């Protein structure tokens, strides 16, 4: 591979166009001092605007806390956060645990609920994408159920599972499954005819078609489904836990409201936002890895 790139480079250098570029290039290349200045400028450009935004947010918050009375100031919240994060994993019984435990147990519920949704939704998506009859059959049902808030399903979960914890997981399952099904089905429908024709000409076995053609072609769509599912799941889990109680970031928010520790509620908002952002970024990275250039 490296030998080949070398060859290409030599070829490039040999073409007259490359030579003219070379002749022009030295004048245009900045001196080292300029280069570092350039770097600092680029850094400032990418750092300054977000810093301004943050400062504005804190400023408005400060103003509101002065006027609003019961809203804690940024400084007070910061102080509370420092104590809170100094020991995130303490445990004094089920109703008093560190913020780390709360976040982790919320993530666990999201993970389990989403896992079941993927296990059911992805195969279902493949079936709906491949068979027109099945999609005509199931699409109206999905269209009807999809706009329903997953929390409306919580009582059904409580009824069936007789426990709060699996009921919360159940709502996650419900809200995660729709994007999984719909995106997977869309991906299967959009597999380029050329690839299907290749499979037909080669007369590949059904197993090979799935592993070598369908699955890689559908994967980017599936990952979009996963990203949307996890995003919604993270939105829903907070509300679900407020209703079901136990350990979890949503319950924690409600608990701190009952204790009137408003600083902690503000901290929780930041933590929830940060975890959501992190999940999104991780999944974007994975999606990028599995997206192929088709040209």
């Amino acid at each position, binding site marked *: *591979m490296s030998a*080949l790139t070398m060859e290409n480079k030599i070829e490039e250098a040999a073409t007259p166009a490359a030579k003219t570029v070379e002749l022009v290039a030295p004048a245009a290349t900045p001196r080292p001092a300029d280069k570092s200045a350039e770097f600092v400028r680029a850094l400032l450009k990418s750092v300054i605007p977000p810093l301004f935004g943050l400062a504005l947010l804190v400023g408005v918050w400060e103003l509101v806390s002065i006027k609003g009375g019961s809203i804690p100031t940024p400084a007070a919240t910061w102080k509370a956060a420092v104590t809170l994060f100094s020991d995130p994993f303490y445990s004094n019984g089920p109703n008093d645990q560190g913020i780390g435990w709360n976040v982790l147990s919320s993530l666990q519920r999201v993970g389990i609920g989403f896992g079941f949704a993927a296990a059911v939704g992805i195969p279902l998506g493949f079936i709906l994408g491949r068979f027109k009859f099945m999609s005509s059959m199931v699409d109206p049902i999905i269209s009807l159920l999809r706009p329903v808030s997953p929390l409306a399903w919580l009582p059904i979960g409580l009824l069936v599972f007789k426990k709060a914890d699996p009921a919360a997981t159940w709502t996650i399952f419900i809200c995660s499954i729709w994007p999984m099904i719909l995106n997977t089905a869309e991906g299967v429908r959009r597999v380029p005819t*050329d*690839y299907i*024709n*290749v499979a*037909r*000409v*080669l*007369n*590949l076995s059904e197993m*090979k078609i799935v592993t*070598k*053609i369908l699955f*890689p072609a559908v994967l980017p769509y599936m990952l979009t489904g996963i990203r949307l599912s996890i995003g919604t799941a993270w939105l829903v889990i907070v509300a679900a836990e407020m209703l079901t109680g136990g350990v979890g970031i949503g319950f924690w928010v409600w608990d701190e409201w009952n204790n009137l520790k408003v600083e902690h509620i503000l901290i929780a908002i930041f933590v929830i936002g940060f975890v959501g952002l992190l999940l999104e970024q991780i999944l974007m990275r994975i999606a990028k890895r599995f997206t*192929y*250039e*088709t*040209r």
Partner: protein
Amino acid sequence: MSKSLVKVEDVGQTFDTKNGKFVALRDINLEIREGEVVSLIGHSGCGKSTLLNLIAGLTLPSSGALICDGREIAGPGPERAVVFQNHSLLPWLTCFENVYLAVERVFGQKEGKDKLKARTAEALKMVRMDHAMDKYPHEVSGGMKQRVGIARAFAMEPKILLMDEPFGALDALTRASLQDELMRVMSETGATVVMVTHDVDEAVLLSDRIVMMTNGPAATIGQIVDVDLPWPRDRLDLVEKPEFAHYRAAVVDFLHRKQLKKAA
């Protein structure tokens, strides 16, 4: 030119469209003999790709029958390999893996892994792509992708090779070098080839027979030209030969005088 390999008998093809039935092809009769290179040429929309798809078995005819090696064509199969216009390499497999997928399918039951790998490497070497075996399709140029597409088809050792405007998407220089390459590979393997093209020079240069089609709808075979030029052919020698000019003129005459497209 020995025994007949593919027979197309009274084939017609109609498609159901929103505006009712559309007759694409009618009364097609054609016989392709073993080792022969046949070009299908005609204006766009004349159904030449439709005919190729019928031979490939990707679509089935509305009337008539197609027979390959004594058996009716009921669907696609590896004994009729297809080189698609836009290469159709799977982007998540390397060039090697793309060819290997085909080789494994055709020879996987009889031969061991080493033999299959050797076959794959040999096919890629034949089209001079052995230096880029482990690259992904998006890492190589358009001409190289089509070379791999051709290697994939040849590696299957098909009874007949079907090419749908194989060089249509390439620039003139790349096309010429790939045509030369294809001629070499064809003479090395003695392959039977049916090729769709809209390039008159390409048709004369590469084929033993040129099947010229009338304009659609309801296109059919208008005329067949036998190209009686000796193999191997060399493009530089040929352009100076009067025979080449003669065949070329025959095709151009058909396409531009007898089948002139109205307001094209």
